[in-house]
């Protein structure tokens, strides 16, 4: 055995490694493919060996070959083998190969689930890291579902290296498994305030990516991001956040207002161009969102445009490019401020860099007006001539067409000019956009009736000179134009001056070389022309000429009858026969023209592209219903048992059966006929009153005399230029005329004759050369306006459109792998074995389907809930308004409405943050304690208006958890406000513990609101409320000896004086110390970083370092402050006691039942128990209370029994088993630190003794 290993390693020495492979390929330049194929053979041999090192080496080489374009999916299984190696080096090779070539279709992926799970929980952080990196590239919906929970746990890993990777990969998980978004989101949100900048940046990254797709769901995070934006120094994070705000502002204009100032500051202060640019971009987005309401931001626009001009003028091409890009965004809403920089932009058109020229073109699009359109297009036409390279020229061409056709040809005053431009564009060689020009020609000719005469003349010339267009090559896309030309000439042939000549041009033998679909149009329109010609000749009673025309067709059409193209052939032979018949009639001197014209009578109107979709489904029409009854399955099944009897009396049975069938069929037929007769949408067989178009008589066809004083081609000068000159002259004349007129009749309205020139008139008010009637596109009557047309139903991000503020339902928990299959069957378990039985596969697909349904349901549900929420909110507001003086009564109703409002409160929170106008400071009234009513009530009533903005920090608080509390806090305050006289003070007067709102809890189902704030101390001037040290975090590294606890304290000014120079001081104990800034002595106080105007509250946080956490702590402290009123200022002080309960050292940590079971089995934990009598609250309230006040999380709950878990900041595990029966609750607890456990249990007891 040992010998084998040695031999193996010696063999290995002479195996090719990656470097040898690369070297070999480089040395076989001539026969690279052959060399590689021998290498692949070698690799196949190596993969067959047992030695994992050899395999890893082979896989490594495969990764290289994959980059060169070789398919290596055949080695997928070997890659999985290498991934599962215990050595990091090999594992990494395996994961790299997997990330390069695995995808959703790779079937071996399902074998990796357990391996990946193992690697994710590996003690070696680099194993975990490598697994996360690999997984990010090949995660599938199945993997995402099975591993979501494991990855979520990693988000709170101790190592920031793992945390940031886990956070980042969550985005991929969400994409593949949208159900995980809601359960994982709270934690993701927490990570926004992670102490490690890398993790923070990753979280910002993920949320930005999510929010970009469904911004409205993330509006509530705006305050948090706002805080990050003002505090972060990492440019990358700042850029992301600023970009995110750019996506959010369109939804919430108030946010924009708030943003303008900090963004402008950043623009002025930053030196990083990237940041500056993004700031400008977001300011632009804000301005766009505000543009409807407030025009008062001209300063900001000016600043942006000015900064962008600097960018555009910069020598760095990158900045120039981006400047133009941003400029085009301003253009949309503030075109005037950009138009003043026309010079600069036209200058950019001459730039040597194509990207920059293209951007400048984009800008031109928005800068045109009726006045300068011709001039700009002329400039572009010059560029078209100069342009090298077809792509840029094509781009110019499309831009010219875009510019001219934008908003329904709004800026075109002279359509003759436009047609000439289009004709000129057909001279471009090798353009791909023939069809674009063609469709423009068709569109203009159809929709602008006045131009038809001119257009037809132009098209006739085009057809006559078709050889110029098709001359060069067949693949030339420009011949598409002939399609349009032929159709226009045929359809509007009444405008043709010499239809015979055009007809002749359309039947030239050369036409047969054109693409099939064009030939088909030629043939069809030749027939139309034929009809016109006939009519003309018969009108002139020139039967000779008419017969000649027929003969021409009969001569030429056989060429098309032979065409290989089916369409051409069919049409040609059809028309040929028709003409032959006509000829026969002609020879008998029968007048046929009228009948022939009738074939092509009627007008074609343009139809809007979405018209078909918008036809509403008529009532009672069910497209999914069967037209004929489907053969029912049950019948055939029923027949089988009957077959037993069929033997006995076969004839009878059969005959009866058919009889029934015939009767039944007849009956059905009747019913169907009846239905059809009643159905107006059924096209009946009998000839109905279908609309027959009145064929216009020959005399009605107006023959337009075309003034050919403008020749088609002026040598040396493109003809569209002439229009430019003409237009200028015309405009000048008009101006002069107008001046005259205005002098005469100032009030006379102009432009009477213009029927429907769409779009608003520009301020110059240029009348178009022709009276233009732009036919609007047809839409079906009572079309439903729908806005969801543009959404792509296949967009994976659509699934992530999930309301994140809704509280989590039980069903939404992530699937957890457990050892007890009856609790929750993990689909991953099935995959351990290599072959999955087909049955389970079916199941999983079924599951998926169900899930889809669920998803849809969810979506619907969330919509409904939103509606409900809104209602609730309104209802509540009404309640509040209508019942100001009936506090007691309203209390109950509100209590009942509490749970829904707690969700809507998130929104109102945001409203609060966004409203720069002060919300009626609910805070004041809360402070009215019974003792101080007299002193403060005078100050209370209406001192509202001057509440400053700096209440923000209170709202921009960290965890969701906390936020909820705050909401409740606020609600509470609002309630209190209404109950001014009937004051329920629910807090203990000083140093109280956690308190439960409104004392008693009725038997209601919804959870009563809970608050973690308690009054610390108060006097007539100030009240201090303290939050239980919820925000606890430990410092990494010195885990064991020192931990930090953050205490948030709300200071509230209850007096009508100004409070300032507040100093917070605590007498340190051996165990707990207040963290003071460096250089401060151990007894110095900390200055509270704000001042309090009357009636205002604000929050400050203080950090304490704690050594031992097994005992509760009490710290004495004082707050000193100066009370400043108009007359005097006095020094005041307030003593308080800070109570650190053991509970406050616990952190809510989720735990999975398997880990929990292991923990209990390990035997390291000491037990203790507790009995509580007379608890009459629902079990889930009880659990919620323990979770909320004591920071536990429920591991598992079965009926009236639940296991719970929490962890202290120093890593002690605390496990609880809570059972309840008949008002008695027994709690069995285990912990590795008995004294900690004892204290926690005491505190638990205290909590419940209060209720």
């Amino acid at each position, binding site marked *: 055995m040992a010998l084998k290993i040695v031999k193996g390693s010696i063999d290995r*020495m002479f195996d090719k490694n*990656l470097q040898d492979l690369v070297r070999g390929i480089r040395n076989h330049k001539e026969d690279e493919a052959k060399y590689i194929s021998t290498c692949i053979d070698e690799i196949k041999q190596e993969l067959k060996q047992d030695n994992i090192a050899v395999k890893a080496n082979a896989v490594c080489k495969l990764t290289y070959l994959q980059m060169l*374009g070789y398919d290596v999916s055949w080695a997928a299984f070997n890659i999985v083998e290498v991934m599962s190696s215990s050595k*990091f080096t090999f594992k990494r090779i395996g994961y790299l190969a997997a990330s390069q070539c695995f995808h959703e279709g790779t079937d071996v992926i399902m074998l990796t689930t357990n391996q990946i799970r193992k690697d994710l929980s590996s003690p070696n952080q680099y194993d975990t890291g490598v697994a996360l990196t690999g997984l990010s590239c090949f995660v599938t919906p199945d993997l995402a579902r099975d591993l979501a929970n494991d990855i979520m746990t990693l988000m709170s890993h101790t190592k920031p290296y793992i945390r940031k990777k886990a956070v*980042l990969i969550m*985005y991929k998980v969400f994409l593949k498994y949208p159900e995980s978004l809601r359960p994982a989101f709270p934690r993701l949100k927490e990570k926004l305030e992670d102490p490690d900048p890398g993790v923070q940046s990753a979280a910002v990254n993920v949320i930005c990516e999510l929010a970009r797709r469904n911004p409205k769901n993330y509006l509530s995070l705006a305050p948090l991001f706002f805080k990050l934006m003002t505090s972060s120094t990492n440019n990358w994070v700042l850029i992301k956040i600023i970009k995110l705000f750019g996506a959010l502002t369109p939804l919430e204009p108030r946010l924009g207002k708030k943003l303008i100032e900090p963004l402008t500051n950043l623009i002025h202060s930053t030196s990083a161009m990237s940041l500056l640019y993004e700031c400008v971009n977001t300011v632009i987005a804000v301005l766009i969102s505000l543009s409807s309401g407030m025009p008062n931001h001209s300063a900001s626009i000016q600043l942006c445009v000015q900064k962008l001009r600097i960018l555009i003028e910069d020598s760095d091409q990158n900045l120039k490019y*981006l400047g133009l890009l941003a400029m085009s965004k301003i253009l949309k809403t503030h075109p005037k401020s950009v138009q003043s920089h026309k010079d600069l932009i036209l200058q950019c058109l001459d730039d040597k*860099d194509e*990207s*920059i020229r293209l951007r400048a073109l984009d800008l031109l699009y928005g800068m045109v007006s009726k006045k300068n359109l011709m001039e700009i297009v002329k400039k572009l036409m010059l560029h078209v001539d100069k342009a090298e390279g077809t792509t840029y020229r094509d781009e110019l061409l499309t831009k010219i067409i875009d510019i001219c056709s934008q908003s329904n040809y709004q800026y075109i005053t002279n359509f003759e000019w436009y047609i000439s431009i289009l004709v000129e564009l057909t001279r471009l060689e090798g353009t791909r956009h023939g069809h674009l020009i063609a469709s423009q020609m068709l569109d203009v000719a159809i929709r602008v009736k006045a131009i038809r005469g001119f257009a037809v003349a132009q098209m006739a010339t085009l057809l006559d000179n078709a050889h110029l267009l098709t001359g060069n090559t067949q693949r030339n896309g420009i011949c598409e134009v002939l399609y349009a030309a032929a159709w226009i000439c045929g359809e509007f042939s009444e405008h043709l001056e010499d239809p015979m000549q055009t007809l002749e041009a359309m039947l030239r033998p050369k036409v047969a070389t054109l693409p099939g679909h064009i030939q088909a149009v030629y043939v069809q329109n030749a027939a139309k022309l034929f009809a016109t010609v006939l009519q003309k000749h018969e009108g002139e009673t020139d039967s000779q000429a008419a017969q000649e025309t027929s003969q021409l067709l009969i001569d030429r059409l056989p060429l098309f009858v032979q065409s290989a193209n089916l369409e051409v052939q069919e049409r040609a032979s059809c028309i040929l026969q028709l003409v032959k018949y006509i000829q026969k009639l002609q020879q008998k001197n029968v007048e046929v023209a009228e009948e022939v014209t009738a074939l092509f009578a009627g007008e074609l109107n343009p139809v809007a592209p979405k018209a078909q979709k918008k036809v509403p489904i008529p009532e009672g029409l069910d497209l999914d219903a069967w037209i004929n009854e489907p053969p029912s399955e049950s019948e055939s099944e029923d027949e089988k048992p009957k077959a037993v009897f069929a033997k006995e009396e076969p004839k009878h049975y059969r005959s009866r059966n058919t009889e029934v069938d015939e009767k039944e069929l007849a009956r059905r037929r009747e019913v169907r006929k009846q239905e059809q007769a009643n159905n107006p949408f059924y096209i009946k067989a009998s000839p109905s009153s279908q609309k027959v178009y009145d064929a216009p008589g020959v005399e009605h066809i107006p023959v337009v005399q075309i003034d050919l004083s403008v020749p088609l081609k002026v040598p040396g000068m493109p003809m569209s230029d002439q229009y430019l000159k003409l237009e200028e002259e015309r405009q000048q004349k008009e101006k002069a005329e107008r001046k005259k007129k205005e002098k005469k009749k100032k009030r006379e309205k102009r432009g009477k004759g213009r029927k429907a020139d769409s779009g608003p008139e520009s301020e110059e008010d240029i009348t178009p050369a022709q009276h233009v009637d732009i036919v609007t596109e047809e839409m079906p009557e009572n079309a439903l306006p729908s806005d969801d047309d543009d959404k792509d139903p296949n967009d994976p991000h659509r699934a992530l459109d999930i309301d994140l503020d809704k509280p989590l339902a039980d069903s939404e928990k992530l699937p957890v792998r457990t050892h007890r299959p009856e609790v929750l069957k993990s689909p991953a378990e099935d995959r351990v074995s290599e072959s999955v039985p087909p049955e389970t596969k079916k199941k999983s697909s079924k599951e998926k389907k169900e899930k889809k349904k669920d998803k849809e349901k969810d979506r619907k549900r969330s919509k409904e809930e939103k509606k409900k929420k809104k209602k609730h909110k309104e209802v509540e507001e009404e309640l509040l308004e209508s019942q100001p003086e009936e506090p007691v009564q309203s209390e109950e109703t509100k209590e009942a409405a509490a749970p829904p409002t707690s969700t809507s409160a998130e929104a109102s929170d945001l409203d609060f943050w966004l409203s720069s106008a002060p919300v009626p400071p609910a805070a004041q009234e809360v402070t009215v304690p019974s003792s101080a009513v007299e002193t403060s009530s005078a100050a209370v009533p209406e001192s509202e208006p001057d509440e400053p903005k700096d209440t923000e920090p209170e709202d921009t608080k960290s965890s969701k958890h906390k936020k909820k509390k705050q909401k409740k806090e606020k609600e509470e305050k609002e309630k209190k406000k209404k109950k001014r006289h009937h004051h329920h003070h629910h807090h203990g007067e000083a140093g109280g513990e956690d308190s439960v709102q409104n004392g008693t809890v009725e038997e209601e189902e919804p959870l009563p609101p809970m608050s973690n704030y308690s009054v610390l101390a108060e006097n007539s001037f100030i009240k201090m409320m303290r939050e239980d040290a919820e925000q606890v975090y430990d410092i990494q590294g010195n885990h064991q000896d020192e931990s930090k606890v953050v205490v948030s304290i709300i200071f509230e000014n209850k007096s009508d004086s100004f409070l300032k120079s507040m100093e917070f001081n605590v007498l340190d104990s051996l165990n707990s110390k207040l963290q003071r800034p460096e250089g401060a002595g151990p007894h110095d106080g900390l200055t509270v970083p704000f001042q309090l105007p009357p009636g205002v509250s604000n929050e400050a946080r203080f950090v304490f370092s704690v050594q031992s956490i097994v005992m509760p702590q009490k710290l004495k402290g004082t707050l000193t402050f100066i009370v400043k009123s108009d007359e005097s200022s006095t020094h005041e002080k307030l003593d308080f006691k800070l109570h650190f309960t053991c509970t406050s050292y616990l952190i809510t940590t989720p735990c999975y039942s398997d880990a929990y079971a292991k923990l209990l089995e390990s035997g390291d934990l000491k037990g203790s128990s507790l009995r509580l009598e007379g608890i009459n609250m629902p079990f889930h309230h009880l659990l919620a209370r323990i979770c909320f006040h004591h920071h536990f999380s429920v591991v598992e709950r079965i009926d009236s029994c639940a296991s719970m878990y929490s962890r202290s900041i120093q890593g002690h595990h605390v496990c609880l088993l809570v059972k309840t029966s008949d008002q008695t609750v027994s709690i069995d607890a285990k912990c590795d630190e008995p004294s900690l456990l004892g204290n926690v249990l005491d505190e638990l007891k205290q909590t419940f003794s209060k209720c």
Partner: protein
Amino acid sequence: MIKAILIFNNHGKPRLSKFYEHYTEDTEQQIIRETFHLVSKRDENVCNFLEGGLLIGGSENKLIYRHYATLYFVFCVDSSESELGILDLIQVFVETLDKCFENVCELDLIFHMDKVHNILAEMVMGGMVLETNMSEISTQAEAHSKMEKSEAGIAGAPARAVSAVKNMNLPEMPKNINIGDISIKVPNLSSFK
């Protein structure tokens, strides 16, 4: 999101390709070729952004690239990324390579594609930027190679020796490759903090 990261030389030979969306090998090669054609015909002093090719994502995406001596570094990104930010990121990437390979040249990338992948993985994960701090990236990369060495231990020694000998036996190796040092000084860009 970053859709793909490509490194190829002046002749369009791929030196590293990382796609964050799945394509078949053939499409990948086409994308590389197309990108090379788009990028290589651009002058030195034009802007470093261009609208994405037809194959990879269309108009949503942008190509952001930098050209260093013999190599093109191309990032294909969508609209959520900051253009200048990505340019800085490419700079960080190249500087990190320079640090890890000690004066990086094209040859390093040719022979150590796996190592480049590993460094890249510390910077961009699944199409999203993981780390922009150069020292952090190189610390992690070093930690990786340290682990690798400790695992190889004595067993790896003979293999290393053989490979060293192999390298020595190739007198033509330095000749047939012309290496330009990758110049990493680029003005006008502030790097990340």
